[in-house]
């Protein structure tokens, strides 16, 4: 590793980042090689969407240039190639999450649709008046609103696991919320606004002990850590392709076979049927029962390439490198007078969310952008989190394995310039 990209020479950091050639990895991401407002792009918004390696871009291009056809049922060569490539992603997703069976992986548009599929199909069938759904205080709107809609429709209650000032869930309070009326515990694996890694295995075990099912929002976890749905014993687990370096508009919902089999279809249409007459339709088996209509074929193929890419890098190596980067960033930002980190959980991934005294996040965002630094500002689709910390918004720098220690330094220098403007 060049000294430019890694000015840190402490033993721990050197150990974690040894052999992780970030400069070489950056060559795989064409978008990173550009200037913004005359400065090299420093992309610190991967929690919103991750950048795409050539492997993904090429796979999508190859599909459109060489294999393009609709999938399933086609007997011609192109259709068979498309089908094989698309279905291969299902197998790759099975390995990525270590699911038992590839039929437990359903293609969806993203995490949001995955959650909506569960609330619409499982929820409508299984949740009744006075039943309870448990979510947490740090959920993204996508894991709040669908459950709220379901509760409203059924007269069920939404209960919320509270958190402490560091942004950690209060497990004793969670235990108190569980009761025989609890049908579902839906929580995020990693918080998009705070970076907190939740003790998801413990959360799932406690839910099961109370007789409830679990849905885990894996949108922010899958880009950063190994997920094993069997070891976790998660009932449902959803993630988005575009956050794991794949394209937008494609994602995966994992569900246990026996749950999926018992659920009614989510949408009706082609591809989700066995026999259709005007009197009656027999639905297809899982996963196709939940996949009506022509899907995002190119997206599915791109996602497969993205999962391959992440696997080749090694998700554990990615996690170790990012951990060192996050520790360095946390330390560096803490040194800036007037800056307060929002989200200081002991277990964190990828996210540096903060506010600065007397300077609104939106102004910080604009001023950083003029220096080529892309961060996100706002409520991060987690308004209840902002309310809890009593801030209107935060500035969020989110990291991926293609970020460098030098880029953290650029962020710090950029924030000092922001302070100068508002001095």
């Amino acid at each position, binding site marked *: 590793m060049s000294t430019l990209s890694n000015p840190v020479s402490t033993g721990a950091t050197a150990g974690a980042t040894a052999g992780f050639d970030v400069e070489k990895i950056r060559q795989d991401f064409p978008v990173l090689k550009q200037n913004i407002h005359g400065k090299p792009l420093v992309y610190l918004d991967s929690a919103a969407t991750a950048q795409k390696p050539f492997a993904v871009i090429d796979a999508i291009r190859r599909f459109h240039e060489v294999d393009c056809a609709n999938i399933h049922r086609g007997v011609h060569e192109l259709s068979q190639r498309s089908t094989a490539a698309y279905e291969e992603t299902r197998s790759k997703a099975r390995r990525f999450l270590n699911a038992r069976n590839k039929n437990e992986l359903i293609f969806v548009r993203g995490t949001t649709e995955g959650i909506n599929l569960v609330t619409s199909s499982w929820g409508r069938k299984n949740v009744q008046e006075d039943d309870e759904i448990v979510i947490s205080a740090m959920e993204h709107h996508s894991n709040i609103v669908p459950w709220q809609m379901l509760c409203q429709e059924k007269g069920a209650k939404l209960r919320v696991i509270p958190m402490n000032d560091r942004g950690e869930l209060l497990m004793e309070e969670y235990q108190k919320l569980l009761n025989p009326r609890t049908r579902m515990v839906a929580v995020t694996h990693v918080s998009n606004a705070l970076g907190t890694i939740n003790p998801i295995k413990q959360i799932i075990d406690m839910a099961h002990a109370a007789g409830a099912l679990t849905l885990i929002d894996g949108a922010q976890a899958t880009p950063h850590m190994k997920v094993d749905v069997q070891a976790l014993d998660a009932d449902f687990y959803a993630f988005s392709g575009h956050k794991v370096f794949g394209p937008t508009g494609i994602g995966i919902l994992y569900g246990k076979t026996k749950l999926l089999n018992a659920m009614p279809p989510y949408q009706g249409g082609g591809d989700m049927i066995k026999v259709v007459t005007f009197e009656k339709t027999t639905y297809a088996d899982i996963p196709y029962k939940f996949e009506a209509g022509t899907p995002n074929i190119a997206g599915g193929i791109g996602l497969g390439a993205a999962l391959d890419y992440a696997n080749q890098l090694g998700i554990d190596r990615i996690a170790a490198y990012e951990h060192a980067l996050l520790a360095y960033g946390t330390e560096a930002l803490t040194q800036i007078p007037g800056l307060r980190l929002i989200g200081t959980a002991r277990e964190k991934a990828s996210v540096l969310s903060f506010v600065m005294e*007397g*300077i609104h*996040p*939106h102004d910080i965002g*604009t*001023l950083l952008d003029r220096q080529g630094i892309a961060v996100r500002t*706002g409520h991060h689709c987690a308004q209840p989190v902002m309310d809890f910390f009593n801030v209107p*918004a935060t500035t969020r720098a989110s990291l991926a394995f293609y970020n460098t220690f030098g880029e953290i330094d650029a962020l710090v220098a950029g924030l000092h310039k922001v302070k100068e*403007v*508002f001095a």
Partner: protein
Amino acid sequence: MVHDLYQEIILDHSKRPRNCHSMPDATRQADGYNPLCGDKLKLFVKVENDIVVDVSFVGSGCAISTASASLMTESLKGKTRQEALKLLEKFHELLTTDTAISQDLGKLVVFCGVRDYPARVKCATLAWHTLKSALSTEIAEPVTTE
């Protein structure tokens, strides 16, 4: 670096906003909210014989939205309702089009840099949208401060 956007006068008004207080004897008031960045603003207007005799605001927002509210309150006093709405139109034009800058805008021309930052147009127009709503709904009783 970005002095085209954050001009001295904008920074000054964002740090020391003018007419930033509630108004017990306002005849009109309206709330403005920008869900994108969480900016909140409460606008108080006192209209007598169709003339805007006083304007004030309270709220929290970014530098652009605070300065815009502050400068707006200064530029409205003494204007008729019609003139105020006309100014809003010209201000909106300043931010969203490439047309020549109107001389009627006075100090408000400092916001001309915003047109190069489409994402920030909403910040600069929040107070003005709130003004439009305040001027179009009359309240019978003066508002009370909370």
